[in-house]
């Protein structure tokens, strides 16, 4: 099942700094880790932008994004009741059935976007959540209240611990680690997990054009050859990744 239509914007909320949350209605229940290709009809940009499912509940699809260029800036200027082009859910998402044992979720910056909906889907497994931010934190409240533990780290120490999130997790304490965030953070986590034989899944990000696996613009090199982040991913098993 795929949604491919114009949807009315229910909310397009400024969360903080350059972080926004877009809400549209959808009957389709996405998998955690999936994303949508979103394009407003305003502005002079061409391609839809891939945006992660932050949450889905009661028919409301919540997409969290960071304004990082012209396209996302234009999307952030759209108003409630404006029509927006929505295609998805896309990508493989996390395979919940594989996530058993002691689980850590490690997110950084806008990389926390897919992790909230993931956590909601595995709440019963009581994952520990590690979230890292540069300075301002956002969307922390969503990660409660049934969490086992929430460790917040900021580079300036403004909120939570001071430093990098990678310094506060001992991957050996876990059976499975799930990560999404800046490349350098994910690389560190993946490398640590592979060294310690801990299962690790990473949700990757790349520039995309089609979002459905046709254009081959978003491929990454893996141990099994080129893989499309949009179609074969965005979630990859760490053992496949070349870090």
């Amino acid at each position, binding site marked *: 099942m*795929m949604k*491919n239509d114009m949807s009315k914007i229910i909310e397009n909320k400024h969360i903080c700094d350059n972080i926004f949350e877009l809400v549209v209605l959808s009957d389709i229940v996405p998998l955690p880790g999936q994303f949508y*290709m979103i*394009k407003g009809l305003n502005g*002079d*940009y*061409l*391609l*839809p932008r891939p945006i992660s499912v932050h949450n889905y509940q009661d028919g409301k699809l919540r997409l969290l994004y960071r304004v990082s260029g012209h*396209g996302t800036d234009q999307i952030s200027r759209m108003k409630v009741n404006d029509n927006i*082009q929505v*295609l998805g859910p896309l990508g493989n998402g996390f395979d919940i059935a594989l996530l058993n044992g002691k689980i850590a979720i490690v997110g950084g910056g806008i990389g926390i976007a897919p992790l909230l909906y993931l956590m909601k889907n595995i709440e019963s497994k009581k994952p520990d959540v590690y979230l890292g931010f540069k300075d301002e934190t956002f969307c922390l409240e969503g990660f409660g209240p049934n969490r086992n533990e929430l460790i917040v780290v900021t580079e300036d120490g403004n909120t939570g611990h001071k430093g990098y999130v990678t310094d506060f997790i001992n991957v050996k304490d876990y059976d499975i680690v799930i990560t999404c965030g800046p490349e350098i953070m994910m690389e560190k986590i993946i490398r640590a997990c592979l060294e310690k034989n801990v299962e690790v899944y990473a949700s990757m990000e790349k*520039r*995309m*054009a*089609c*979002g*459905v*696996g*046709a*254009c*081959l*613009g*978003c*491929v990454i*090199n893996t141990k099994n*050859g*080129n893989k499309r982040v949009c*179609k074969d991913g965005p979630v990859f098993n760490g053992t496949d990744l070349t870090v």
Partner: protein
Amino acid sequence: MANLKVDFLGKVFKNPVVAASGTFGFGEEYNDIYDVGLLGGISSKGLTLKSKQGNEGIRLWETPMGLMNSIGLQNPGVESFISREINIMKQYKTNVIANLGGNTLDDYLIGVKLLNDSEVDIIELNISCPNVKEGGMAFGIKADIAYNTVKAVREICRKPLMVKLSPNAESIPEMAAACEEAGADALSLINTINAMAIDIYARKSVFNNYYAGLSGPAVKPIALRMVHQSAKAVKIPVCGMGGISSGVDAIEFIMAGASIIQVGTANFVKADSCLDIIKELDEFLDSQGIRDIKEITGII
């Protein structure tokens, strides 16, 4: 309901809208979104004799109303295509066009020989890929090299042969005429325009290959001019493309001399753009009291 049906190289196209090579894979991803059998045809991802991994580094870069790409012909190779991907394409009840690229003349010849025995409807000979370091585009720049290539391919090719021209050719009318004289059954154009983007902070080209191919609405007026020039220069039919995003765009290309058109970048902008274009074509013809699309082909 105007008649959108076009006879092109002896094949019936239920409408003149074809998904362009490199933007549509082998159809299966888009068939998850809509019935791609509604299209006039699908041109396959550009094939090479041996499989290719494509280019390293950034492969996509958006420009004002344009898209630069440097995919580098990542593809499974002709043999895999014949044993696997062609079967996927054939199930869609639409014309299957095999887009074939090459680094050497031998690559083209062996590739064509293999495709001769396959079920493809048309071969689109790509003498114009800008993203492969050695060869590739060289065939599409000089009319005499293109002539020799097309002539050699023509001698062994048993499928309808459409030659895809590069906008980077020294002279489009000369190139078009040379390909016709060499035995091409049709021309398609334009491929992407060789272009560049620079990351001023990193002080280097965005693309590892320095240059990349520009497509999308930004190139449309140039493409339209080149299609018009080609159509005037030859008697064989022309398949027009380059930034077509709407029914209006498609009509412009048809009026400029294109019998059929291809839609590329627009598939990314809106996944079912091709269907919108087919609908808009039909509406335009009805609104103008035109009963058959062929009435307006090449009228400019």
